[in-house]
């Protein structure tokens, strides 16, 4: 092997290692950026939600009836209320206590929104068929695979209604299994990509009272 060939091999090695390091740095930075964005949205969302809940509580309603029924029980087909933060509408927050996660959930789903928060992919929490997807950022759904059966997941909508779930099944679906993902009998589904990106880690949950 000539000296030139050796140099070419060494330089190639250095370039590949540099590319790997650069990609790692970008991923770490992107994760950090997403966690900052998500935390900022969560803070503003929670602030607005508290104001909304405070404003809609009505002392006169206390004498009006024994226990006011939430609107979603009267009309499960109603659109989920939203709160707008920085131009995007959010339908609520999803909390996963075993992973110490609490994230805002956007009303719609696209790649721009997924850079900030997790997204409602389909369905409605009022109809017990909501599907939420998120990036496999460490600050989002990367650790979904570590959840165990009966772990708790909590969703709180934009007007303060709380819905509690327990993990019932952990599954892996192919990227083309759209119907399987959205047409299931589970009350709540969370999904994200696996490490390689060729499958979707899917968490199926059932609601508990």
């Amino acid at each position, binding site marked *: 092997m*000539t*000296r030139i*060939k*050796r*140099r*070419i*091999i*060494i330089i*190639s*090695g250095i370039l*590949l*290692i540099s*590319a*790997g*390091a650069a*990609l*790692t740095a970008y*991923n770490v930075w992107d*994760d950090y950026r997403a966690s900052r964005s998500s935390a900022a949205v969560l803070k503003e969302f929670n602030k607005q939600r508290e104001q909304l809940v405070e404003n*809609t509580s009505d*002392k*006169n*309603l*206390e*004498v*009006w009836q*024994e*226990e*006011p*029924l939430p*609107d979603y029980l*009267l009309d499960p087909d109603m*659109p*989920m209320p939203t709160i707008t933060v920085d131009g995007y509408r959010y339908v609520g927050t999803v909390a996963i206590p075993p992973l110490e996660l609490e994230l805002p959930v956007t*009303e*719609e*789903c*696209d790649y721009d929104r*997924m850079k900030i928060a997790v997204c409602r*992919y*389909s*369905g*409605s929490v009022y109809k017990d068929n909501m599907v939420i*997807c*998120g*990036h*496999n*950022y460490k600050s989002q*759904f990367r650790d979904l695979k570590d959840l165990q059966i009966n772990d708790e997941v909590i969703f709180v909508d934009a007007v303060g209604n709380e819905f509690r779930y327990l993990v019932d099944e952990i599954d892996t679906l192919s*990227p*083309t*299994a759209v119907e399987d*993902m959205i047409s299931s009998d589970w009350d709540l589904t969370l*999904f*994200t*990509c696996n*490490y*390689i*990106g060729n499958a*979707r880690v899917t968490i199926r949950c059932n609601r508990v009272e």
Partner: protein
Amino acid sequence: MLDRSRSKILAVLLMAVFCLCGMIPASAESANYSLTVKFNTESGAVSGSEFKLYYALTPAGELTGEFADLKVEVGDLYSSEELNELAYTLASYAAGEEFKAEKTVTSDSAGKAEFQGLPAGIYLVSGTSAQIGKIMYTPKPVLVRIPGNSPEGETVCDVELEVKYDRMDIPDEPVSRTVKKVWEDNNDPNRPKSIKVELLENGKSCDQVELSEKNNWTYTWEELSPESDWQVTEKDVPDSYTVKITLDGSEFTITNKNDYTPPKDNSDVDGNNGNIGRPNGPTGGDEPKLPQTGQLWWPVPLLMLTGLTLLLVGMFVSPSLPSSASGDKNDQD
């Protein structure tokens, strides 16, 4: 025989009495309840506000009396926002149509107006504005169920109601009020070409205008007294429509709604909760795919390992290879 006839007559009479009992209006039922309206602002208790109490809905939630003829959607009576909108609409018509109030009481120095001897029902409470200094306080109309329920589920016979209010600094200049028409009828082709709106000053009719596409279904009254109560009503609400009146600042919105369903088209409806934007997978093609939710981590170990191998080969392994040894020799030559 005579006894049998008497029995029949008695039975008929008893049936008549029962029927009449069923027709007796709620106002004739036991009138044991009371309502105390409290009008307190940040400036203190407001006295001199005239509160009118209307028996608007039966305990079952059906419009009654003069209100029964209004084309107003009552709804389920659970949402506080809907209740407030219904109360505002009913109060506007109660003033515009000069409905007879059950009772009228003026708030005393403690800001209280007490109504005694009320039968069960759902009442509309409507009060006039009161001026304190250069500030006008206008109580918001409210619907209240008599008797009420405590949070513990107990019946409350003597209901106390703290009215909410709008606060407005009285300007030196005349004010304006705008009315806007909203149709919630899925573009019903039978929608009326125009509607009539009446402006009320302190409950008395003072003007009437027509809204249509020509004026973009909106109208603004200028040069109005800032010290008056201003309300609007829609005259002759079109058949098959209901009416709702709301006020936001100085703008009234009159909403007419019906159940018209447009012919179905072939648009793609989600079926879950309207159309939800969804990204398709990254590979394109006709087959729908779940979104790509992964960071690009898999190339990292591949790049690192390959790079490290090449580095090691270049630095240590290659000199020991026979071909490279001769090459090196040639290089040295």
